[in-house]
């Protein structure tokens, strides 16, 4: 999975983020995407091969694996990371639109330094504030949704060692053994903890932005 493209897009947004936003981005790339790519994919790599059932009935193992793991943790995390990163694209689009508007005004004759425009750090105020705040809000919603989906789909966050399966064509209730359950539980809890941290960071950023705008408004009014 090529996460480099995502990194280049989000890197551009990084310039216009608050400090908390930059910390969030760092945590996302190092503690989530990197762990996913370097460690977790290998742990889950042999999940179907080494899913062993105590039966010789052909097809029983396949059916039981599919029943207990409708969507693998790895794919769910990849989806979670993509959904959680997407709102930042809204901010990137807004910034690009603002720049485009400035260039248009430059072409119409207004005096704007075009070189400075490329490197200018656009401050978060006005319509950009709304875009940015709603992107953080959506991020929080997506994080919470995925954490709930994990909990619902796998009955908690622990990977069981033994699952009992009686799906057809298994002739009776069959013992099936999951591969590397302890290691998988460790990584599931780790990723959950980092999701929690990211959500806290997003909440903090949201509060910071709201308080900042309230103080500005009260300053103007006073």
């Amino acid at each position, binding site marked *: 999975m090529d996460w480099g493209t995502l990194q280049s897009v989000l890197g551009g947004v990084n310039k216009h983020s608050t400090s908390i936003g930059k910390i969030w981005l760092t945590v996302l790339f190092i503690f989530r995407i*990197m762990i996913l790519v370097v460690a977790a994919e*290998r742990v889950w790599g042999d999940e179907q091969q080494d899913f*062993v059932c105590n039966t010789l009935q052909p097809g029983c193992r396949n059916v039981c694996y599919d029943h207990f793991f409708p969507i693998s943790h790895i794919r769910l995390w990849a989806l979670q990371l993509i959904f959680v990163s997407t709102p930042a694209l809204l901010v990137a689009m807004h910034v690009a639109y603002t720049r485009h508007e400035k260039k248009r005004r430059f072409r119409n004759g207004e005096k704007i330094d075009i070189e400075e425009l490329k490197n200018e750090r656009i401050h978060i105020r006005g319509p950009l504030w709304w875009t940015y705040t709603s992107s953080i809000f959506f991020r929080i919603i997506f994080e919470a949704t995925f954490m709930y989906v994990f909990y619902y789909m796998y009955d908690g966050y622990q990977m069981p060692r033994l699952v009992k399966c009686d799906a057809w064509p298994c002739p009776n209730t069959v013992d099936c053994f999951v591969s590397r359950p302890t*290691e998988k539980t460790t990584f599931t809890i780790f990723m959950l903890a980092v999701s929690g941290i990211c959500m806290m960071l997003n909440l903090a950023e949201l509060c910071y932005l709201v308080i900042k705008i309230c103080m500005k408004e009260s300053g103007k009014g006073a």
Partner: protein
Amino acid sequence: MGEWSFLGDFLEKVHKHSTVVGKVWLTVLFIFRMLVLGTAAESSWGDEQSDFMCDTQQPGCENVCYDKAFPISHVRFWVLQIIFVSTPSLVYMGHAMHTVRMEEKRKMKEAEIEARENKNGGDTYYQQKCSVAKEETKLSGWDEAGGQIILRGSLLNTYVYSILIRTAMEVAFIVGQYVLYGIFLETLYICQRAPCPHPVNCYVSRPTEKNVFIVFMLAVAVLSLFLSLAELYHLGWKKAKERCSRSYKASPSTAPGRLESAPQAERPQMYTPPPDFNQCLSSPNGKFISPFSNKMASQQNTANFATERVHGQEDAAGEGPFIKSSYVESPEVASECAAPAFPENYFNEKRRLSKASRASSKARSDDLSV
């Protein structure tokens, strides 16, 4: 190594702002840990479960025995170790970037003051700018003349804390590895766990090769720990030296510009000391009583003192535990207060110098680049 590029890119930036020992530590991390892990260790542990054989036909027995023998694979353990050990450096880098940003904001404010002063006109502009610059340089740890970040004050504290946490993490992971696996892997693992019907012999895949890598990674971890401790000792010693020198130095920390802008109030306290005079004199509040009563002589002394203070400032910037690490992204700014510009990428660890000397006696340009 491509997968490690996320962390690698961040650590490259940290590399620029570290001391010499810090750079050596980062090089060890990149080459002996990340690279070895990514290329060699991964392939050695690749078939760890598929070739984990147990002497039983019982379905599921191999799975559960493997899970009991290796709750977390060595490779994943080392990945987590590298990430957790690198994290404090990222925190330090965040603080350094924040410092740089504060400096940029300060410069913008100065530019605004300049614009305002130019409108109003006034002789006090340069003095104010110098005074503000020098005052905030001391607070922020930013050497405007050299375009470098100086490790002092809160930034030095962050650096020291980051090294302390890094050391603690390193020790924790080494101890953790010992608790989980001991030092060496055995070829034979005897397993008794449901659904295995009885104690079963299980055979680990490639134990000798794995032991070689385990010993290698352990040795590199101990080396990194040693480097961290060496850096701590070095910083701690420098900081203690700074404290000693500060307790002898009793001169006020006012900038020369401010002296010139408020000569009336402070003239009675101005005098022209010989070099190191302030070390001979010690007073509790750091104020010196002028022996001169003649006004003209006093004025001349004020000017002389100001000139000496300017030279003293730039030397003082290099004294004590201040470890300069260059920050290449910043433009070189020529300060109006006549401090010499240092070249970029100039790493310098200065000892206490005589006031007359300008150059460092210990110029170092042998930075390691990864």
